[in-house]
């Protein structure tokens, strides 16, 4: 863990610089869109993708997506700059930069997508890239496990999400998100509203780690610190929140929406702040406060009032700014001292003054002191909570409790390590290089600047975002530092008092929480045994199904075929067997007799070579039937394949031990009769109904004039259905290569 601060000699070269410039360019581009969006306009770019299904590569820039885009690209730039130093000289830095940049782009795609399918594609891309990032330190077992856990939880949610999106598209008749929102409240009246809501929320709640799916997020802290700062503060976990916000105009306002989001959001917020205070690891503490923020954002999205929406937009920005900056500060502390345990840290303020300043600025915003943006965010939160029509006390209480705890955590994370105690003698911390403190300082200062000049933010981002959320202009409330003596102010004062109390007694509180939380079940404890159970179930069922005996595979395959056909026949009614045998010629009879004789011989013989030859007889009998009914192409193919199969099977079979001397294989006999009878019955059924010659006529008519060929079978293969043929020959190649690989690995003498 303790690698110490990087030397200047180690560098990542171009792979370090290019991603920073790329993300920076994206940020500048999005920033240039601000004036347009601030004028309450939206930008929509559409490229046809799958026109037959009405799916488009549609991108929409409005207040909501622009706010997210700016956060993603801005914080992304700073995090990439930071990582370049944090992981300087790391042998796999190129991979890291690739993953992080890919993640940034997928996240941007997610927030800009204006088509449900496109949204889902980017949604899954963020899941995959974040899996790579969480598991970046793949040599440690813990990191692999936690990455897989995050992938499974969010991936399972993603499946539900996809189902929800498909239902949503079916219910509203379009995959365009702005199209769905333009339909207004129609969706809420739809019969499928509840299933859609449940499925979508399953996706967003797992992605945004709401209780009870919260357990993966703190575990995801196994990732390198800059990743945590980026993914788990500003971006990925907010993807779920983003989708809820995006669907807010179309889906909010119902009782289910209101209560699910309010209750789960509030529970997550309070629960997570308690857990945050419990942690002694700085990064873990921050991870839980992220949960608290996500809970709060969810809570606000449950409401509809302009206050709640303004509070949502403001808190979204406040949180991203201070949380990313604090995570980066923790990274600096970690690199400098080699630990993130609060008990082993102290007195860093003098040695790392710039980092300490950044931490202080961010923490003051987090704790909600004036004149920081955090203060305005907190006041708006209270105003929004009071404006909640249904349960103002519940919401305000949850907000008060979580804010006070947040205050205490801010103290633990950003005050205590710097200004209390002294540096342990084992550590020799020094200030981090500029690339590492630049990010925290910039982000934390923005919290102060926007706090002092809230109008900047109000016009540029808050107003347009609230328009996206409510669908109406003028709903946004004003951001101001001094809103007069009112209830939010009293609540703020109460927060400070309560927060100070919590901070003062946090060591005792932690011990108390430690005891009480042990009795609360956590899905993380059951996770490993769940996975083990799944694996042993898989093993058990593979042993039954894949027993390695070819004859039992074939037996079950053909049994399924016979059962399937017979059941179909029973279900649709047996065909009338009125077979007219009067025009059967001797050549037909003799071919049939030959085939039957071959089949019987294959069944009774104990010699493998005789069995193969008998099967060959059956095959050639069938080829003869094709010839009699003038299908030369099929007959030639059948003959050739039959020849080659006999050769191939003979090569294998002759090396196997001879068959056991059983008298008569009754089950095989019964099965072959069942397959033969069912196929014959279905053929009779097919022939008894008038044959649809539509396709035959078409091919006969067009084969020569359009494809210049007289052999219809071949023309179908290479021209009319060339894509199918291509698929088939691809399968042939893959099968041959796989068989070849298998044969090569099973050397002589290795076989059982």
């Amino acid at each position, binding site marked *: 863990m303790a690698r110490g601060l990087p030397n200047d000699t180690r560098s990542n070269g171009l792979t370090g610089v290019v991603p920073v410039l790329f993300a920076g360019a994206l940020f500048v581009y999005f920033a240039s869109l601000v004036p347009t969006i601030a004028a309450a306009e939206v930008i929509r770019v559409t490229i046809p993708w799958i026109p037959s299904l009405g799916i488009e590569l549609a991108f929409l820039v409005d207040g909501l997506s622009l706010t997210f885009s700016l956060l993603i690209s801005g914080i992304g730039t700073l995090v990439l700059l930071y990582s370049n130093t944090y992981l300087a000289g790391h042998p796999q830095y190129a991979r890291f930069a690739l993953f992080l940049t890919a993640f940034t782009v997928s996240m941007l795609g997610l927030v800009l997508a204006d088509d449900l399918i496109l949204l889902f594609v980017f949604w899954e891309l963020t899941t995959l890239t974040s899996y790579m990032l969480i598991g970046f330190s793949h040599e440690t077992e813990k990191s692999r496990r936690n990455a897989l856990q995050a992938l499974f939880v969010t991936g399972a949610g993603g499946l539900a999400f996809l189902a929800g999106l498909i239902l949503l598209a079916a219910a509203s008749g379009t995959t365009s998100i702005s199209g769905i929102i333009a339909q207004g409240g129609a969706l809420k009246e739809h019969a499928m509203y509840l299933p859609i809501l449940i499925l979508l929320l399953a996706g967003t709640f797992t992605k945004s780690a709401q209780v009870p799916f919260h357990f993966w997020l703190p575990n995801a802290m196994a990732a390198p610190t800059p990743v945590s700062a980026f993914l788990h503060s500003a971006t990925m976990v907010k993807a779920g929140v983003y989708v809820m916000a995006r669907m807010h105009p179309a889906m909010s306002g119902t009782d289910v929406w209101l209560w699910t989001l309010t209750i789960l959001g509030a529970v997550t917020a309070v629960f997570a702040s308690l857990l945050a205070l419990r942690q002694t690891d700085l990064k873990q503490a921050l991870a839980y406060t992220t949960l608290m923020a996500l809970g709060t954002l969810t809570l606000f999205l449950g409401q509809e009032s302009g206050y709640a929406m303004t509070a949502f937009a403001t808190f979204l920005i406040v949180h991203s700014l201070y949380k990313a900056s604090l995570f980066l500060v923790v990274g600096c502390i970690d690199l400098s001292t080699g630990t993130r345990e609060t008990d082993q840290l102290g007195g860093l303020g003098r040695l790392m003054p710039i980092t300490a300043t950044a931490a202080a600025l961010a923490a003051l915003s987090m704790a909600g002191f004036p004149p920081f943006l955090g203060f305005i965010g907190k006041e708006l939160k209270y105003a929004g909570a009071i404006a909640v029509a249904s349960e103002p006390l519940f919401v305000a209480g949850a907000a008060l409790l979580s804010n006070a705890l947040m205050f205490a955590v801010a103290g633990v994370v950003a005050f205590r390590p710097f200004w209390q105690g002294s540096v342990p003698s084992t550590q020799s911390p020094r200030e981090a290089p500029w690339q590492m403190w630049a990010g925290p300082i910039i982000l934390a200062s923005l919290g102060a600047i926007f706090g002092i000049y809230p109008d900047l933010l109000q016009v540029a981002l808050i107003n347009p975002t609230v328009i996206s959320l409510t669908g109406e202009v003028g709903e946004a409330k004003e951001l101001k530092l001094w809103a007069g003596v009112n209830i939010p102010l009293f609540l703020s004062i109460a927060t400070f008092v309560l927060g100070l109390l919590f901070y003062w007694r946090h060591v005792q509180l932690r011990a108390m929480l430690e005891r009480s939380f042990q009795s609360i079940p956590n899905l993380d404890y059951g996770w490993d045994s769940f996975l083990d159970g799944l694996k042993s179930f898989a093993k058990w069922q593979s042993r039954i199904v894949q027993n390695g005996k070819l004859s039992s595979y074939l037996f079950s395959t053909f049994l399924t075929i016979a059962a399937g056909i017979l059941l179909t026949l029973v279900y649709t009614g047996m065909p009338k067997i009125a077979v007219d045998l009067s025009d059967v010629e001797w050549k037909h009879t003799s071919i049939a007799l030959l085939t039957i004789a071959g089949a019987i011989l294959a069944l009774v013989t104990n010699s493998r070579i005789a069995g193969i030859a008998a099967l060959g007889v059956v095959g050639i009998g069938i080829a003869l039937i094709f010839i009699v009914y003038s299908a030369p192409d099929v007959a030639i193919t059948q003959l*050739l394949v039959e020849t080659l199969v006999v050769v191939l099977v003979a090569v294998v079979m002759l090396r196997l031990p001879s068959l056991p001397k059983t008298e008569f294989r009754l089950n095989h006999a019964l099965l072959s009769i069942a397959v033969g009878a069912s196929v014959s019955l279905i053929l009779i059924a097919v022939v008894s109904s008038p044959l649809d010659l539509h396709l035959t006529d078409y091919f006969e008519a067009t084969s020569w004039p359009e494809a210049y*060929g007289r052999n219809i079978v071949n023309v179908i293969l290479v021209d009319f259905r060339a894509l199918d043929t291509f698929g088939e020959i691809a399968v042939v190649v893959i099968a041959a290569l796989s068989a070849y690989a298998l044969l090569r690995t099973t050397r002589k003498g290795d076989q059982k």
Partner: protein
Amino acid sequence: MNSVILRVGTRYLAGLLLVFSFYMMLRGHNEPGGGFIGGLTGATGFVLYAIACGTQDARAALRVMPQTLAIWGLGIALAAGLFAALFGDALFTGQWLFIGATETDKGLPLSSVLVFDIGVYLVVFGSILTLVFAMEEEI
């Protein structure tokens, strides 16, 4: 299998089968035949050769690895399909060129469809030989 008659006979038969397989492939568009049947016929010749003279000799006679042929075949078939894109047509649309065509005679027809069929031929030919050779050698 050690039989002089079979070995000597196979040398001629395999060659004949190979030539015949080309013929089957080329006539396929208008008469019974085609890449699939051609590939099977050609492979039969080499399978016979492998049985009579051993896979070592058969591989030497083939000169290239059969799996390479199969993969090339797949590539050729794909290229023939993509070729249509150059003319703005949908994937796998046949492209035709009639050399020396007059009012009454179509001349010598050349087409991407034939190229596709050659790809099919190589895939079938290569895949079967990959399997047969490997089975003869490894089991």
